[in-house]
């Protein structure tokens, strides 16, 4: 072998090592997401298990009182679940109809110019920090509600629901818009040719044709409402109770977690562990919702050529 050959061979080897090393590094970066997922599960499970050594899991799910910080203590998560449920239902009442209507407007009616205005507005609404929505709920929506329903508490589920509804609205609108636009024009034209009005085309052809995407967007939006924290912490109050009255102060799971972490709770105490027990429940609910949305998208996807 000549020297020229060996150097070229060596260079070739060096380059291969370089290539493989880089690939390994990139792989490790991608692997981090699995590590984070496992990390979340381990951290939540570890402290939650410790919590359930002190508190029976039956009490956790059946006791109707949640007084974890003061004696006599009660660890029934139902009031927190009910609070979260109230917010989810309330926000769905606002976010879903308006979101779907905007999506239909965007995909079926809007001119290119109107679209060019509405889309960025939805993006801006989606990008506003949740703490700002909380401020808006407390200082604008609540006084407005008080004006209509005088018995409204300063902290109430209704105002928080309304702003959470506004928060999930852009998500519903843009996901539904994508789904509606994936329905081919030939279907619309076919329906028009049969004499359908635009209303009939939209509701009987386009919406059913995009149903999997629309339903998945609802599930994702609701999952987002479940995990919403700042707006409900600021506006919905800190009194866990089982009530369906939206004008009363309540507490959601997320707001409870914030409340505990605001105080100075020593690690290892039962109060500290409640964060993880409630957090684990929250994680399970949102994970189930996200998996369900993916399943809906995969199983019921309408395929168009």
């Amino acid at each position, binding site marked *: 072998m000549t020297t020229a050959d060996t150097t070229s061979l060596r260079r070739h080897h060096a380059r291969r090592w370089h290539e493989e090393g880089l690939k390994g590094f990139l*792989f490790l*970066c991608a692997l981090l997401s699995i590590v984070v997922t496992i990390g979340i599960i381990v951290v939540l499970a570890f402290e939650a298990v410790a919590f359930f050594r002190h508190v029976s899991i039956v009490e956790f799910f059946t006791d109707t009182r949640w007084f974890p910080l003061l004696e006599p203590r009660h660890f029934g998560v139902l009031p927190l679940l009910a609070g979260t449920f109230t917010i989810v239902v309330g926000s769905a009442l606002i976010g879903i109809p308006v979101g779907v209507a905007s999506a239909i407007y965007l995909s079926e009616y809007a001119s290119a110019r109107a679209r060019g205005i*509405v889309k960025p507005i939805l993006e801006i609404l989606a990008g506003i920090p949740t703490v700002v929505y909380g401020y808006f709920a407390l200082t604008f929506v609540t006084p407005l509600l008080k004006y209509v329903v005088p018995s409204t508490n300063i902290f109430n589920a209704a105002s928080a629901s309304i702003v959470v509804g506004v928060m999930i609205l852009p998500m519903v609108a843009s996901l539904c818009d994508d789904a509606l636009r994936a329905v081919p024009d030939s279907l619309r034209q076919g329906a028009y040719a049969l004499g359908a009005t635009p209303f009939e085309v939209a509701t009987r052809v386009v919406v059913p044709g995009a149903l999997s995407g629309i339903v998945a967007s609802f599930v994702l939006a609701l999952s987002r409402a479940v*995990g919403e924290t700042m707006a409900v912490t600021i506006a919905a109050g800190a009194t866990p109770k089982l009530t369906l009255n939206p004008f009363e102060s309540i507490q959601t799971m997320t707001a409870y977690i*914030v409340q505990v*972490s605001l105080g100075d709770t020593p690690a290892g105490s039962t109060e500290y562990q409640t964060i*993880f027990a409630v957090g684990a429940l*929250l994680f399970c609910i949102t994970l189930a919702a996200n998996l369900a949305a993916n399943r809906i998208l995969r199983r019921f996807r309408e395929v168009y050529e």
Partner: protein
Amino acid sequence: MSRLLAAPANLRRRHRAARAFRAICTVLTWFCLVLLAVLLVHATREGLPWLDLQFLSEFPSRFPERAGIKSALYGTLWLIGFTALFSIPIGVAAAIYLEEYAGRSRINTVIEVSIANLAGVPSIVYGILGLAVFVRWMALGRSVLAGAMTMSLLILPVIIIASREALRAVPNSIRYAAYALGATKWQTVRHHVLPSALSGILTGTILALSRAIGETAPLIMIGALTYVAFVPSGPMDQFTALPIQIFNWVSRPQQDFHELAAAGIVVLLVVLLLMNAVAVFIRHRSQRFRL
């Protein structure tokens, strides 16, 4: 015969329904615009009287007229700086691996699924993770570093998803041309694919960072809600951030503090709008110079 005669009335009804439906959809959509306007006007009207140089250059205070957001502004700057430092390289690297290198193996499927799920995990759960792992286990305390690492994990899925989309939009012809000239995989990615995807990656990254600027819950979880009347001088210092300061003021009962919160919100929204404008500008420019 009778059905034919009845048709016009029926048709009129159907067209009326169509017009009503269109009107409802249009009104509800433009209602969003009204909402945004009301939100902005409300915050600006409440906060504007408090917005002056003193507000930007003073530390928080018990006295509303002397309170400012200096420590919050610097805290946010430190936090976002470190978050960008951690999340951008890792996120872009992960996206490159998944788009350019990954084959159809089991582990890659698991990676994809976990990224999709992480994108849907509530931000407060990241806060719990940060509290347990960074603050307690790694004993970083309530430092800028712990906050930035938590925030990085939170926006990592967003950066990965956006970067993947940008990489996917690069036409394969560019890759084939590079290979045909004898470039290795990495040379192709480094010198041809990445530069073509740069504007898309930048846009997605800026939007992800603007999300991090507004996030409050994870920072509260790791304990950033403390009275901080100094500017952090290193990554191990305690800090406060703009949304935390806003939350602190909103949760006080006095009207004056609510107005201070509004002033803080105006500053926060201006920062976010500027970042969005930069992102839109980059996207627009890259579309104009598309090959």
